[in-house]
């Protein structure tokens, strides 16, 4: 596959994954701009990293653990305070039809 270019179809697929309802114009623009950036990023391929460990984090620490002690929750009112739609008990969304939409 051509790593350098990201075509309209790929942009659409990525937009779907990212849950962005992009317009045709945005898709076209992103196709160009993302291609430019990916082309630039190609320079990484010049480096031989076969024996290099990936570095996800620079921290010298591990095992930051919390004791199993109850802390106060926000409570229903505060939890729902910023909700775009709620009934005072639950967050409300349009009916979820595909119950298998989860993992």
């Amino acid at each position, binding site marked *: 596959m051509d790593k350098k270019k990201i075509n309209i179809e790929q942009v659409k697929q990525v937009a779907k994954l990212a849950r962005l309802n992009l317009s045709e114009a945005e898709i076209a623009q992103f196709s160009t701009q993302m291609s430019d950036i990916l082309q630039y990023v190609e320079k990484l391929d010049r480096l031989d990293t076969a024996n290099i460990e990936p570095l996800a984090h620079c921290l010298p620490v591990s095992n*930051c*653990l*919390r004791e199993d002690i109850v*802390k106060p929750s926000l409570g229903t009112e505060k939890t729902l305070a910023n909700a775009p739609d709620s009934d005072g008990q639950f967050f409300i969304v*349009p*009916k979820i039809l595909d119950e298998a939409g989860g993992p």
Partner: protein
Amino acid sequence: MSELDYKIIVGLEIHVQLATRTKMFCGCELVFAAEPNSRVCPVCLGLPGALPVMNRQAVEFAILTASALNCKIAEFTKWDRKSYYYPDLPKNYQISQYDLPVGENGFIEIPIAEGQTKKIRILRVHLEEDAGKNLHGENFSQVDLNRAGTPLMEIVTQPDMNSPQEVSTLAVELQRIVRFLGASEADMQKGHMRFEPNVNVVIKKDGSEFKTPITEIKNLNSFKALEKGTAFEVKRQLNEFLDSGEVAKSGNKKTFGWDDTRGVTVLQREKEEAHDYRYFPDPDLVPVVVNEKWLADIKSGLCELPLAMQKRFTADYSLGDYDAGVLTADKDTALFFDNAVKAGGDAKRICNFITQTGLKIANEKGCRVSELGISPQRLAELAKLLDAGTVSATAAAAIFEKMTQSDEMPQQIAESLNLIQKSDADELKKIVDDVITANQQAVEDAKCDGKKTKKAYGFLMGQVMQKTKGTANPQIVAKIMDERLKSI
């Protein structure tokens, strides 16, 4: 269908809720059926800027369970984000473990037939956070995040189960194990354990093998549903194979949901749609490094596992597999039994006390047998009284019940309730003679070999027991009665 030569192949994905007080990454309390959205904080609500901090107890429970399942415990593990959008998942990613699970390559031993066991390989054990709950109304859905962030342990087995029975047996066995370890309450009704079997069948036909497409079954909320759902799915697959001949290939895995009322599986997802979870290491969490000392500390929480205990009870105490199974369904009960036997009680008698009288009373009170207020020592004493013939079996049951209310030793209770058996032969002979004199017809019936023999004999014995208010030692009475009847 019966003419088909086939083999059932099932692997299980199991989610077990850990018995922590708080959530996986925040201090929100885990409360079953709490007011909706009342146990939510910035972390589990996924508010901007909120960060997760892992619960030590959850990590330790997972390592403990993985150890009990004979897994290799990872010295280094990390957290990954699994991305998908769903309203019950506030961050739209789930914190889980992808390539470095807590434990790998273990096995669980399950009982398959009287005394026999089978090893099912465990692929991996990992930790993750649960999502919330979506409830579906007429025109909209409601989202409750109380459960969001609950610590789950996901256990994935190899496809080593070959019948629906094996699937449910594994489920029950796993429930016993996590309960023994204290890692989970494992209450199916509260959704503490969720089982998702991956089922297919290998069919031998015309000298070649055909594998049906794998299906995953969701929504199995009880052990019975798990077994029935798996069995149904096997039948459905065989029928579908006969109909369409479709075989497994990459991408044609389907998802079915179990409809418990109708007793059928219903197609949920036609094909494994291109799920792209975009796993990557969660930059908000640091790795978990399990050194030898910590692992040893955690493993000190290991105990004799239920199946081993069950085997020991049958081997050392000569119990039947069924009784041993009942006793080891619960760790406290099993230990209570074991300690009572070790305190000198006869195993069979102790077992009967527990399974016949004890469990009944405990059920009524909603507690365990070990919590009835009877120490293993006192129970052993009661067993000894019964063995010595000091009390009858009926009396012993009454004494057991009394012991739950009083701290007195069984002997004292027996005395104060006047339940000590009369074993004085002279006194009993006199009573037997009185009964014989008073019931001539019954004596005749008892002596001749006829239909009425047994009944008449029982009647005479009953009369003696009545006259002694049940305190006569039935064995001695029977001996005297036999002698007297013979001599008439």
